[in-house]
């Protein structure tokens, strides 16, 4: 379908307005992101700089507390600890996708196929993070599963299930963006940096199923953010 010049000009004007509105706060919004001298690992751990105080997955809004695990309160997490946390989140994602497929609520074959593919990729992510981590016996993050499972049970439609997965993928991407700001080890960096874009693409695939518009910032942001990152204090590794 062709687009008229007038319509194209209108779209350009609309986008330009949005761009100018965003740019007016760009410097302020990104000052900390670009010029921040480096978040401490304790800040990663305590959830500071993680944006809003609530994690939104699907349609549920969950308050994030400040319950710092006693062991981690004594010393900042190492790159290995962060990798272990990442592994637990990935394994939780695997379990969530498997549960979603078994729930009978997802009936579209293409979506089921995507869920299977994404679960397989999350399994590989988890295995890679486990290999880089400090706990060879790390399992699916129970706190993440405790958050996701009731929402899956309560889901009424296929889109409800897809929305849940969409939220989880964006949360994973945000978590890895935050982790990248503290990791020093090359192996840990390579693992996280190669996984984060994949979670972002998972989110896009699921967002397309949901019919997300391009101007939805959770779907097509100008910059990946830390908003909604999973807090290790709230979702501790078992």
């Amino acid at each position: 379908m062709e687009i008229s010049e007038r319509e194209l000009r209108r779209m350009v004007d609309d986008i330009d307005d949005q761009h100018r509105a965003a740019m007016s706060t760009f410097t302020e919004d990104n000052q900390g992101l670009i010029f921040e001298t480096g978040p401490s690992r304790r800040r990663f751990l305590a959830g500071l700089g993680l944006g809003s105080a609530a994690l939104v997955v699907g349609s549920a809004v969950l308050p994030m507390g400040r319950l710092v695990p006693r062991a981690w309160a004594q010393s900042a997490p190492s790159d290995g600890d962060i990798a272990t946390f990442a592994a637990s989140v990935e394994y939780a994602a695997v379990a969530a996708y498997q549960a979603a497929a078994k729930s009978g609520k997802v009936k579209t074959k293409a979506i089921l196929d995507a869920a299977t593919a994404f679960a397989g990729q999350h399994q590989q992510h988890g295995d890679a993070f486990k290999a880089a981590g400090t706990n060879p016996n790390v399992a699916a993050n129970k706190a993440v599963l405790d958050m996701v499972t009731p929402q899956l049970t309560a889901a009424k439609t296929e889109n409800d299930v897809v929305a849940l997965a969409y939220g989880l993928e964006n949360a994973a991407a945000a978590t890895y963006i935050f982790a990248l700001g503290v990791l020093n080890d090359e192996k840990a960096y390579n693992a996280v940096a190669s996984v984060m874009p994949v979670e972002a693409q998972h989110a896009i695939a699921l967002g397309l199923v949901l019919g997300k518009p391009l101007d939805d910032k959770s779907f097509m942001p100008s910059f990946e953010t830390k908003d909604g990152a999973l807090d290790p204090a709230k979702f501790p590794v078992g």
Partner: protein
Amino acid sequence: MDINNDELRRELRDLDREHREVMPRWRDSLFRLFADKETPTEAKADVLLGGFNRRRFMALSGLAVAGGTILAACGDDKKSDSASSKGSTAATEATTATTAASAVSKTDLTIARTAASLENFAVAVYDKAITNAAALKISDPVAKAAVLFKAQHTEHASAFNAAATQLGGQPYTDPNPTAAKAFEAQIAALKTEQDVLKFAFALEQIAAQTYQGVGMKLSTPMLRQTAMTVGGVEARHMAILNHFITPPMTVPEKAFQPTEKAVDASFYV
């Protein structure tokens, strides 16, 4: 609750005493940072320039159990006599550390400017597609995506140029010259919407893998994070563009994004 003058004076004396106790050890640690020959200069630069988080600072001052590379390499905290006698050697070592720090900053600056130039190139490509939308028979949804992506790449360029300025360099405002030359023929050959989509996809893929690939060349985790806040979006662009490509490819194709398509040093500006 008000605090009386005696209590305030007591607290100030306590603070002053702590400060005086800490400062010689801090000064000694900093001196040995420059004088130490075994600790890699990159590690020293990292401590000085970035990743200078609270835990590392405490380790450097000897106020916590040693865990960091710097303190372990420095040895006993109490041996200050040998350090004080190395006057000219310390000055030489300080110069070496400064040179190393300068080299690290130069790499960061080169990468920031190169990234800005790649973003400028992307802006130019999308602009060309938008300008020639009618001739290329670009559909409404694709045009909308192109307009948005052009705007976002403009923001990315601004962000990288802001980093370049912060690093003491000049912003780069032109499209990457190596990319412009390398892709000139391909751009001239674009005739259909599908041609444009596939070319744009390839471009976004190069960008996404480049920002991941340069990560460990950057000197601080914060710079790596900044690069990947953009790299993640380029990956999202890929997925959106793929949605319009026929037949669509599998995105993400693999569990881990590779870096085989990242630009090499010939693209550096």
